[in-house]
């Protein structure tokens, strides 16, 4: 039993921390406030930097713990950059890496790792999110081709993306597990239309839009992994990776909140002493530390379980994502309280992090879905007397 990071992971953490502090963090406030075009240019520049630092390659790789350690540092510096990089490399990239044919991998992954092309994952629709079986998008086979129709909503990275993974029905009668397929769709394909970027509450540097597919004609080689009907399970497996990544993001946001708050608690004085020396503020710092610290351990524990192939890995990922995302919201709220009125001003880190933190609880596996999954696991174990 050893709760310490290996030397390799520890030096990754230090390297990544330094890189993100110097190269990524300075642009975080601008990304949040910039207009769409400016933000897009800045985000693309950030992806280029991440690619040169080897981060996107790392995200495509097979070391869950390394991804969490690095992801925390990136999210700590700029949660929006984390979300765009993660949506491209983990949601899109890992789907291609894990399930794609050799040809699909060779086509999509090298430019993605180089930061030259950006990916997006299009699953959610206006009327279906957690309930994947409720989507309406469908592809029909016509003369050896697939004709895809549907409208995807809330697609992170859509305004920037060069390629999408799109979930659609291919055989409704087979039900979700067997009747759904993931397609690789290039932005330039006929019938692909990206809607205008929508305004989000937080993570504003990671642009989001709807994706409309109108009689989009795709070849057989657009079926991810040449596995028609495997889409539902592929999404489930990728969602587990994304949920773990969102746990790491939440830990990073918690760290940033804690650092901002500690700095504030030391420098701001009231009634003749730094406010952090008052018990009420000190207790908030302590709670921020506790939940960040335990959240990080849970995230690492889940990552380790994935690396070991433990049968409990999926439940541990759910526990980590649920714990850390709810903790991040709580921590960000405490951070704002420690900052007082100044934290309520547009443009302050506390205000930005407060908005950014809120995302993870409702993204991908929502807290409600995680609780349902975790509970089912425990309840099923004790069905008998």
């Amino acid at each position, binding site marked *: *039993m050893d709760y310490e990071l290996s030397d390799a992971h520890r030096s990754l953490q230090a390297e990544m921390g330094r890189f993100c502090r110097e190269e990524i963090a300075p642009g975080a406030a601008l990304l949040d406030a910039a207009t769409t075009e400016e933000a897009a240019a800045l985000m693309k520049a950030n992806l280029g930097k991440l690619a040169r630092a080897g981060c996107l390659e790392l995200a495509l790789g097979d070391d869950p713990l390394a991804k969490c350690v690095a992801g925390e540092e990136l999210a700590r510096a700029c949660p929006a950059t984390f979300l765009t990089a993660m949506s491209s490399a983990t949601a899109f990239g890992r789907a291609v890496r894990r399930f794609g044919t050799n040809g699909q991998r060779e086509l999509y992954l090298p430019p993605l790792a180089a930061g030259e092309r950006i990916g997006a994952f299009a699953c959610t629709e206006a009327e279906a999110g957690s309930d994947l079986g409720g989507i309406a998008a469908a592809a029909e086979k016509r003369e050896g081709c697939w004709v895809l129709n549907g409208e995807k909503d809330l697609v992170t990275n859509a305004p920037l993306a060069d390629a999408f993974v799109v979930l659609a029905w291919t055989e409704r009668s087979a039900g979700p597990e067997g009747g759904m397929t993931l397609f690789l769709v290039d932005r330039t394909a006929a019938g692909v239309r990206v809607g205008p970027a929508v305004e989000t509450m937080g993570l504003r540097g990671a642009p989001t839009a709807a994706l409309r597919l109108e009689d989009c004609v795709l070849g057989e080689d657009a079926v991810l992994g040449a596995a028609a009907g495997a889409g539902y399970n592929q999404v489930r497996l990728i969602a587990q990776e994304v949920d773990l990544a969102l746990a790491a993001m939440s830990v990073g946001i918690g760290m940033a909140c804690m650092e901002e708050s500690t700095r504030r*608690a030391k420098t701001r004085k009231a009634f003749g002493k730094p406010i952090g020396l008052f018990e009420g503020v000190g207790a908030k710092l302590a709670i921020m530390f*506790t939940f960040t610290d335990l959240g990080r*351990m849970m995230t690492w524990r889940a990552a380790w379980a994935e690396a070991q192939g433990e049968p409990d890995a999926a439940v541990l990922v759910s526990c980590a994502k649920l714990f850390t995302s709810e903790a991040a919201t709580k921590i960000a709220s405490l951070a704002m309280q420690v900052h007082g009125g100044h934290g309520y001003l547009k443009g302050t880190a506390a205000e930005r992090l407060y908005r950014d933190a809120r995302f993870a609880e409702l993204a991908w596996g929502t807290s409600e879905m*995680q609780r349902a999954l975790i509970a*089912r696991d425990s309840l099923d*174990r004790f069905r008998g007397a």
Partner: protein
Amino acid sequence: MDFSFTEEQRMFRDSVYRYAKEQLAPLSEEADLKGEFNFEIWRKLGEMGLLGLPVPERYGGAGADLVTCCLAGEAVGHAGVDGGHILAWGAHTYLCAANILQHGTEEQKEKYLPTLATGEWIGCMGLTEPGCGSDAAALTTTAVRKEDRYVLNGSKTFITNAPLSEVFIIFATLDRAKKHKGITAFIVERGFPGISTGKPMHKMGCRASTTSEVFLEDCEVPAENCLGGEGNGWLIALGGVEWDRSTIVAPFLGGHTFMLENCARHANQRWAFNRPIREFQSIQNRIADMKVYIEAARLAVYRIAASKDSGVALNPLTAAVNKMYLGDRGFEMASEGVDIFGGYGYIHEYPVERILRDAKLAQLGGGTSDIMRMIVARFMMM
């Protein structure tokens, strides 16, 4: 990074769990109800080697590492043994025997550890006083050196095991002006003149453990029974509470696992509105939150144990985080456990009401949650 237990540790845990479930748990429900310490449970804990778990074999113990100690505590809690007997075990082994092991002279170890390790003698530690708990440095029990002995005067309260103890670790001050630097620890035997204990108190939870005041009236302690040297008592006390914040809380983790299993079973079996209540999301949410709590608490507990075993000095931050989280969230979760059982949760026949009462102690004993937050905040403000 490696979160796994060794094969040996897992086997030991499993055997302790089975033993406790078969031999101890059946006796503990009645003991809790009556608020009576059960000597058969105590004897059986001793027979299993649990009372001297961290004590080296040459002093009659098992020489177990910290992770193993935590596993044993978790296993006994998991088996459904009440918090009272577990608390008695914790105070005896980790607050009394482990302190003598860590700070005692060779003579002291040889004299006290073998009888403590078997449980023949019961031990306790007296730090808290009627006028000071968290602010332990404000203690007023005095010790005065007179020739070949010390004379102790004062009183202690809330001392777990005191009514049954043969061996007391008593903290007293040689010079109140020196504040914490005057505090010194002494090994006091029940047979020494001038020591007496009060009537066992009726407690909210952990009821089967005995708790009382300790009175020291011109209590004479031989000079060689000073533990760890004059003026070092404060550091010993701090070291002791660090046990409180790790090993002693491990059984709560097991107790909550026991609770989760009971709740999950009940939710499968109890029907309402033509379906098992497990199908209601409000029930599922509580089960899920318990599971998340148990996973987080497990990491917090074993991180401390693993770090102590690897020879790293205990990080007071992680110890405080552990104690605060296990205590505060553990109490909330125990309350949710009662909710799942509804009216049945409120009666003694089902174990969840006992777990709720027992869980409260983890927020109070060995440094309150308020103090844990102050410790963490102080580090952050440095």
